[in-house]
């Protein structure tokens, strides 16, 4: 009895939970001081075949919406409003 209720809960949770990942990266021509420093350090650590590193931000976002389309639109709105700074950054949303 206890077990089934837990299972049910999990099921419900799953049903109502859509998970997205968002990556936010600097636009191509924008200076990425962090990436540059990381790249140099990796090279100093002996990684010779490294040709480029860019650093960005990563978000995992859980939504309690059923409708995937709707959910994706919400995430898009979040990116535009807060997560990404569209002046210097691009973003990408994926369902996970």
């Amino acid at each position, binding site marked *: 009895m206890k077990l089934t209720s837990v299972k049910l809960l999990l099921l419900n949770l799953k049903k109502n939970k859509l998970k997205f990942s968002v990556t936010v990266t*600097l636009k191509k*021509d*924008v*200076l*990425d*001081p962090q990436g540059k420093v990381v790249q140099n350090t990796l090279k100093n650590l002996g990684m010779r075949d490294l040709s480029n590193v860019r650093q960005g931000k990563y978000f995992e976002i859980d939504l309690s919406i059923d409708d995937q389309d709707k959910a994706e639109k919400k995430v898009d709105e979040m990116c535009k409003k807060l997560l990404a700074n569209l*002046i*210097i950054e691009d973003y990408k949303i994926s369902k996970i």
Partner: protein
Amino acid sequence: MEINNEIIEKHGLKKDEFSSIKKLLKRDPNLLELGIFSAMWNEHCSYKSSRKHLKTLPTKGDQVIQGPGENAGVIDIGDNDAIIFKIESHNHPSFIEPYQGAATGVGGILRDVFTMGARPIALLNSIHFGSPEHYKTKSLLNGVVAGIGGYGNCIGIPTVAGETKFNKTYNENILVNAMAVGHAQKDKIFYSKAKGLNKSVVYVGSKTGRDGIHGASMASAEFDENSEEKKPTVQVGDPFTEKLLMEACLELMKDDSIISIQDMGAAGLTSSSVEMASKGELGIELDLDKVPCREENMTPYEMMLSESQERMLIILEDGKEERAKKIFDKWDLDFVIIGKTTSTKKLILKYNNRIECEIPISALSTKAPVYDRKWVKKKLPKNKVDFKSLTKVKIEDALIKILSSPNHSNKNWITNQFDQMVMCDTAQKSGADAAIIRIHGKNKAIAVSVDSSANYCKSYPIRGGKQIVCENWRNLISVGAKPLAITNCLNFGNPENQEIMGEFAECLIGIKESCEFLNYPVVSGNVSFYNGTNNKNIFPTPVIGGVGLILDLKNKLSHQFKKNNSTIILIGKTFGHLEQSAFYEEIYSLTEGEPPEINLNNEKNNGTCVLELVKNKLVNSIHDVSSGGLIVALAEMAIGSEYGIKIYKPKKLSNLYQYFFGEDQSRYILEIDKKNLEKTEKILKDNNVFYEIIGLTQKDFFEVDGELKIDTKKLYNLNNKWYNNY
């Protein structure tokens, strides 16, 4: 590419300006040349609208080593110590991208100071935002504050003072002005004037990218709905690299390798090379193939107009290249010889073995347009507010409302985000009338403060201009410093509008008057026009940054009450001027009428005499009376101390509101030990200074006889809560 009207317009050049370019070149410019002209001839670099007026400012004095015209102003503080300082605006970039805009503003002004051989020792800022209710304000505020802190904290220079104001006039055009102050040996100051032929022109610092291309032109254009499209021109700051650049430059400056040095600020490689050549009356030839680039396939146009940050141009003495390169290698910075000085008096740029640009230096500098723009006098406000017609408020309620308003609330929530202590010479942090920075390893210190009064300047530009200089002077005196010189950042609307140009001209008349009278010269500054959106211009907002000297750090003063039962003296006459006061604005939303008049004689006399009292060690604490009037100033002295005050009923002015909230100028409040009172009064009388004894400090309570009695802890809380609820 053919240069058509559209391209010319996109470069912000007027038709007749383009004709002048053709005349100067005796041919049509190519695109690269057009870009260079547009960068050098825009307002930001050429000061074409302001130059005529700036020339009227007093810039000389015994204390001045270098006035305007160099990267920063230099003053003498004795013992071979020099202070180098300047203020600069980064308004437009900060509105578009607040964090990076503010950060690169700080980075830029720091380069102006260390380029002259100074180690920066303090940062200040003046930031103006729209109304707190405006939907953009909060994120702009948070972004700007984080950006200022982000850069200063990382590079390790304390941010010690500033001002933060809110007014709906800045809703669509915020102001972000940053000031840097550095210390150098008087005999080790570096200038940007090139000297000698065939000397190596060296590029040092970060690589050049496509960022900020045409930033300088952007800073000289009004905003409109399409501003969004201008966005990619925002630069990203890299304080880490700037720290390396600063250390490398200061290391190289230890000997005599450098002939001249110039940071790449607005208009990057273009303005730095032209400025050096122009001052030295030389030519300069650059090989653009050698410019260190961050991106592939960058064009000469992009290289010359990029505003990538953290770069410098140096002209080296013969034979010093190797030693110099070693230093920059040590700091992992690019160091490339990209050209040489020549006798041609031309800017010649080569790329792929072809001459891509050939412009006489003078065409870009001395022959850049200067405008005598038409301006009209301000129509001064005639109305006086009819005080009797206003609904009455209790003094206590008005005081509380002002103290807890965004403009008057304590700014700890900002300044706690700035490292104020790094370098371990900050003897007084922000929160005081002026910050105090000790000269490293010595017993003396400088005091610094920035001030503006846009409301005053809007209603009566001449008087406003006069007032901001005086207010700044007072703030320095209030910490026991002798004011020495100022820098100024002139934030105005569109100069092509005659009224705006009038505001500019008249504010400068006022500034000049005060500076002259107080022997408080202008040694550096910056003009930012076109602050406005869709023909709505901001209030005229000149900002004054002042530097003063404290000969013995032991004599420094702050505004918090120090002792119980000491006598409180008010210096200066109280007339009860309420127009343009915080009282009218915060309580009644009234912004009519004239700001208070200033008698410069009294200003000077009062200030000098206060310093005399300080010198005689008669004073426990001082505060100047400014926005909010006497009662707000007294409350500020109580807040954060263990003491309050008992204020006697005023003898003369029957209207308590005028007495307590009037913003009459040239006034200071002094806390004096009873045992020192006699001596103090004698000095005041001997110097013909008007003063009144207005009360006594007491434990814990802020009290006006028969009117109000508030726990000072409550005042503290009221003064500190605004941002928490924002």
